């Protein structure tokens, strides 16, 4: 069964139909990429899946459960983690603290227990810390562990954001333009990490990305959207060759 089913999803802002009847299914363990020109509604689809926006129509089913009515703060606990297009880290905290916040949905202590820091809270904190350390190892962030986000280079912040998402032990990770603003080497690393997430961690990845070399390299399937509507679905090569997709990009295929 599909891990994520998006059925006939729609949302409009004022008169603009940002997403208009988009349906797709993400299978467990695959890397599924959304591509499309600017303003095609890719990020909006992400915001709909993470319940930050209320859809005007359609349903989102994750792991057999309809999450369309769930509040946004339940989504992480169900196993969907995400990153943002314009990095949304907690700037005044250290990398470690950011990753620990990533574990918020796995908390098992109440505030009045935390007030007295009961032995239970310490045990729980150690466990969170251990889990976070695994992510730090996985993404090779040990050098930045105690650094403040505000002082980190852009490329590292991108990785920290992914690390924060991984800390929540997700089943599905949504990556919103993981390679935007990254150098060639950093993009290369990002491709490795996405492959590792898929192969070593067994994660399902849903990604929005413009860099077609990265897309072709890591994606199992690609869905092209334009003006809120699905255009073509298939492998990266098939989608890139699709005349409708070429037309949507005004005849200029992406120079990857």
């Amino acid at each position, binding site marked *: 069964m599909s891990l994520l089913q998006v059925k006939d999803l729609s949302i409009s802002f004022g008169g603009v139909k940002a997403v208009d009847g988009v349906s797709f299914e993400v299978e467990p363990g695959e890397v599924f990429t959304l591509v499309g020109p600017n303003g095609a509604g890719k990020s909006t689809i992400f915001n709909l899946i*993470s319940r*930050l926006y209320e859809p005007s129509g359609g349903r989102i089913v994750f792991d057999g459960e309809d999450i369309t009515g769930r*509040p*946004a*703060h*339940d*989504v*992480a*606990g169900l196993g969907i*983690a*995400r990153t*943002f297009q314009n990095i*949304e*880290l*907690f*700037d*005044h*905290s250290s990398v*470690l*603290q950011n990753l*620990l*916040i*990533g*574990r*918020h*949905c796995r*908390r098992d*202590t109440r*505030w009045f227990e*935390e*007030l*007295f*820091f009961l032995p239970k*809270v*310490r045990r*729980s*904190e*150690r466990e969170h*810390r*251990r889990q976070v*350390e695994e992510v730090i190892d996985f993404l090779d962030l040990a050098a930045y562990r105690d650094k403040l986000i*505000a002082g980190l280079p852009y490329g590292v912040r991108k990785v920290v954001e992914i690390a*924060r998402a991984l800390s*929540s032990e997700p089943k599905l990770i949504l990556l919103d333009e993981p390679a935007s603003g990254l150098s060639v080497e950093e993009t290369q690393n990002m491709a490795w990490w996405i492959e590792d997430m898929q192969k070593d961690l067994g994660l399902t990845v849903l990604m929005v990305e413009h860099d077609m070399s990265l897309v072709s390299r890591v994606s199992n399937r690609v869905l092209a959207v334009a003006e809120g509507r699905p255009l073509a679905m298939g492998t990266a090569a098939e989608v890139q060759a699709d005349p409708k997709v070429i037309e949507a990009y005004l005849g200029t295929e992406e120079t990857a």
Partner: protein
Amino acid sequence: MSNRFKSRYDDDINLFEGRWHLAQYALLIALLLAAPWLLGAYYLGELTAVLIWSLAGLGLMLISGHTGQVSLGHAAFMAIGAFTNLALMMRGWHFIPALLASAVTSGVLGAIISRPILRMSGIYLAIATLALSIIIEDLSIIAEPVTGGVAGLFAPPIDLFGMTIDRYSSPAAFYYLCLAVLVIVTLGYLNLLRSASGRSFLAVRDSEVSARALGVNVARAKTLSFALSCAMTGLAGALYAHLAQAVNYESFLVLISITLLLQVVIGGLGSVHGAFFGAIVVVLLPQSIAMLRDFLNNTAGISIAAYPGMDTALFALLILLMVIYEPRGLYGVWFKVRTWLQLFPLYRKGMFRRTRTYLKTERQR
């Protein structure tokens, strides 16, 4: 101690970074415990005031510094705490339950008020909380059966552990009482900050949208933070009532709310130290200005007493300079000095070059 070698996860979890760090705070506590012998009655009173304002500042620090929600109405919760405490004690309650009741009442009222109020942000939130402060001034007159109306209430002496504690007849005992409450509250505060709830507050402050995506119930986090903040401020209000010996509608004017906010801004938003530094400034600055005035009068024959409002003007000037040159407050200054000492002689110029940072409430979401 800047390159501390961590070998266990507990090194990141513990309150104190090793023995040296613990020793510093032990020394501070020892000094505070010895204060009644070191200071005269007058300065002990001032120090007690510093402790009480620190407590109130801690309350505001939680919601404004750590959760990023500006409150210009915290004097209201001091008032609630003070009146609750005195009204209950006059009805025969023992001091300790009455003190706890102050915290609970302020906290619960804070929680109730926070739901509608914390839907706002930025300037609107500031206005709404300011209104709270103004409402409470009138309420303290109207609610005469509880608050004693215009005349207010007088603080009865505190019976504790077989002692009668009174601000004037036993200043040391009252000082220790305030110190104990402050230490307990501070420890609770720090415990919260190093666990999930505290982190969720920071998350709400820095990015509500990603906090939500990470599973933080933003409305609940804000309510919890506001309630705990009000409870702390309520405790401070109760202790303040015993320090001032009498409270009425004039004790908790809007000006107190504003002073509290200035206190946490001068101290340094987002740092626990800041609440304490700010309290020292707020309590001791008028005192220092008075001393400066006498000094100038006696030595140079310049009489600034002839210019009323001088203290307030100087206070305002200090805040202005602080906000322009050191937005991280006194904590920022302290942090730089500490780093300089730790790195000596390797301190680099431009190490603390400022990037533009704002309270998140001022930013677009």
